């Protein structure tokens, strides 16, 4: 690409930013490595550069795929922009034919503007600017160079949001010196219609090019940021308020969250290790018995196999949340294979197998169809104790997702107490805000007494925080 390494490494940093926008996490240390790699390999051999950068920037197969696509995409955009400028000779050769015909046209019928240049000094001045020359002569190379220079001057790389595009197009046009064109156009509007139309056409062409350049900058530099921005915003929205058109984004976010949790926690599942002889320990112990290893010491590592039983309320009162809770449950089951999921409104049933076998949408639909209805915690808990109570032991964490609104019937708190006494942790996640707990037919205040943890959980941020804490606690015990 560019021969001097200074601008090359600038390009590289921009590329790294672009990759981050594409959901490839890159630490400052990685960027540093990338700069080293680029200086070792150089920018001449693109394929080799790609291999080298992939080795330091893409850390898994998923990332390698993203990287390959991003590399091709990024460097083809940047490359075409630059080659327009630097391979000017090349493009000139190609367009020289076209230009010749155009310039001959120009000579044959001199434009209204050119004619006017003899009369008006401001038009003459305008016609002599390099920008105008390039525009009127259709000199693609010169125009591209001018736009690249203006793009640098307008700091177009700082574009962050979709809504900033208009602003940056204006900035870019100003940097190009479009002001002068506008002034002359205003002057001509009342005096010479033909010349005015001609100038307006040129301005429109310039605007089109500027817009094109800004769009390109947006896709390269900002679309990732905008995504981040939207993701960030979405993760703080109350789950009940998420609009249907945001579902796709939400699903992506949930997947990413589950992947993150999986990476952090999934690998700690381990088989118990056979006790090995701990030689250091044995010898240390043997010191007290005059060097005779009387009492052998063994290394033992306890079996840690977290088991989660999740019970999700899918009744009418939490309908807005149920979908997200189920989606999350689905993701959780991927992370912790020993998760069992149950759903209920009045009667309760196990849905683990659906989550295992069906894609997320179908599974959720099936759950809603089979278990939707009016809430009856008493009935549901009775069902639950028949189905799974005997499977709850000291390594089980039980999570209930629900609002504890029970239509004023008996909530069977005795079953909750039984669950609590059997399991390691009993957690109640309530989508309502804490203030609403206990109001109306909510049994939350009495439920709290039977939980180890009761928490409010109505957006993704809270959900992630709670589950992360949950999993961490599970491992540390």
């Amino acid at each position, binding site marked *: 690409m560019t021969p001097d390494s200074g601008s090359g490494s600038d390009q590289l940093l921009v590329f790294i930013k672009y990759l981050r926008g594409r959901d490839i996490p890159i*630490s400052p*240390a*990685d960027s540093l*490595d990338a700069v*080293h*790699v680029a200086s*070792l*390999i150089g920018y001449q051999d693109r*394929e*080799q550069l790609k*291999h*080298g950068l*992939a*080795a*330091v920037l*893409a*850390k*898994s*197969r998923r990332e*390698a795929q993203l990287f390959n696509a991003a590399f091709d995409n990024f460097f083809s955009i940047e490359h075409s922009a630059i080659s327009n400028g630097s391979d000017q000779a090349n493009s000139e050769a190609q367009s020289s034919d076209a230009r010749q015909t155009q310039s001959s046209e120009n000579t044959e019928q001199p434009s209204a503007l050119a004619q006017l240049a003899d009369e008006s000094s401001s038009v003459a001045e305008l016609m002599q600017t390099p920008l105008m020359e390039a525009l009127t002569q259709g000199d693609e190379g010169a125009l591209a160079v001018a736009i690249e220079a203006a793009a640098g001057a307008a700091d177009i790389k700082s574009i962050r949001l979709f809504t900033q595009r208009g602003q940056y197009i204006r900035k870019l046009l100003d940097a190009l010196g479009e002001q002068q064109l506008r002034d002359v156009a205003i002057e001509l509007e009342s005096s010479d219609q033909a010349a005015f139309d001609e100038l307006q056409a040129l301005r429109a062409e310039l605007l089109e090019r500027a817009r094109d350049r800004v769009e390109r900058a947006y896709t390269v530099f900002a679309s990732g940021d905008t995504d981040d921005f939207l993701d960030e915003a979405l993760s703080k929205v109350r789950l009940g308020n998420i609009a249907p058109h945001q579902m796709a984004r939400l699903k992506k976010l949930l997947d990413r969250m589950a992947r993150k949790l*999986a*990476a952090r926690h*999934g*690998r*700690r599942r*381990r*088989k118990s*290790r*056979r006790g*090995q002889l701990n*030689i*250091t320990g044995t*010898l240390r112990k043997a010191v007290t018995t005059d*060097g005779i290893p009387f009492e052998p010491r063994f*290394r033992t590592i306890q079996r840690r196999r977290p088991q989660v039983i999740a019970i999700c309320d899918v009744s009418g009162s939490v309908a807005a949340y149920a979908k997200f809770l189920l989606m999350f449950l689905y993701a959780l089951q991927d992370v912790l294979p020993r998760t069992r999921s149950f759903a209920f409104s009045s009667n309760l049933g196990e849905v683990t197998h659906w989550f295992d076998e069906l894609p997320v949408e179908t599974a959720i639909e099936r759950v809603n169809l089979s278990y939707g209805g009016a809430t009856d915690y008493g009935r549901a808990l009775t069902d639950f104790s028949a189905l799974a109570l005997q499977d709850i032991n000291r390594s089980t964490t039980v999570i209930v997702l629900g609002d504890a609104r029970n239509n004023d019937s008996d909530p069977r708190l005795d079953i909750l107490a039984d669950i609590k006494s059997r399991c390691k942790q009993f957690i109640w996640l309530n989508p309502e805000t804490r203030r609403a707990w206990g109001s109306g037919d909510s049994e939350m205040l009495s439920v709290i007494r039977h939980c180890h943890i009761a928490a409010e959980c109505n957006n993704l941020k809270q959900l992630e925080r709670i589950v992360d804490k949950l999993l961490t606690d599970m491992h540390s015990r």
Partner: protein
Amino acid sequence: MNNSHYPQLDNVEQIIRAFENAGYICTQRIATVVYLAAALNKPILVEGPPGVGKTELAKTCASVIDKPLVRLQCYEGLDESKALYEWKYGKQLLYTQVLKEQLGEVLEGAKGLSESIQRLHNMADVFYSYEFLEPRPLLKAMEQEHGAVLLIDEIDKADFEFESLLLEVLSDYQVSIPEIGTISARSKPIVFLTSNDTRDLSDALKRRCLHLHIPFPSVDLEQRIVASRVPDLQQNLNDQLVKFVHALRELDLKKAPAISETIDWARSLLLLHADTLDPQIVHDTLNVLLKYEEDIATTEGQLHKLIGQASA
């Protein structure tokens, strides 16, 4: 930036050639990563399905740079006493017994208990010194005078905790021994870690490594690999058998045949004096390629079709 220790790895084309001479056909990607590993002193994390030549890459690298290969095979339960170092307890015990009499001499003439203790304190901590250290692969690799290739094989089989143990070795090329201090590498080895993708490795480990994923090779590349490994094989048979193996990989098998199996199969066919793929021979030797009974059963049904494709 030249690496004085490994002049053989100074540029990418040279690596491709040197590895080819050693019998390892590597793509530009592999060569680039090996070059960077030598130039940046970074370990390589090699991932890919079993049998694509991950371990072979490290062995070939060792033979190309003519340095010893130190290999650490990972397994569940591997710990620092197997990977880093161990004290020679037997020797320590023996020496304490032998040196008991010495103690009398040291303490001779000491007045009172406190002076005796003082004298004992003044003795160096002899039993936890370098002489009683049993180096395990990681420490051994650090101790090589003129560099080495360290192969940490199947890191995904080791426990999660073991990865943390490796971090110091991989980023700083040193080993800390509480009783002695820090032992730095005399000359930084080239480190290969291999993983079969059975679990995700920690970010900390990945961050310290160059990442290299070796997929199943293209038909063309695999033919070159077979030709280099089994030079006596005829070109047209090579062509057919590689295409056959590629067709096999398209099937839904429990374990797809890898390069190593292709090579084994090529050798078997050579031994059997086959000069073309005929159904009988393929049928008889299928167990070289496929390691599960059900895979063999799946394939046998389509044998004629597959051979037809390969010979086309």
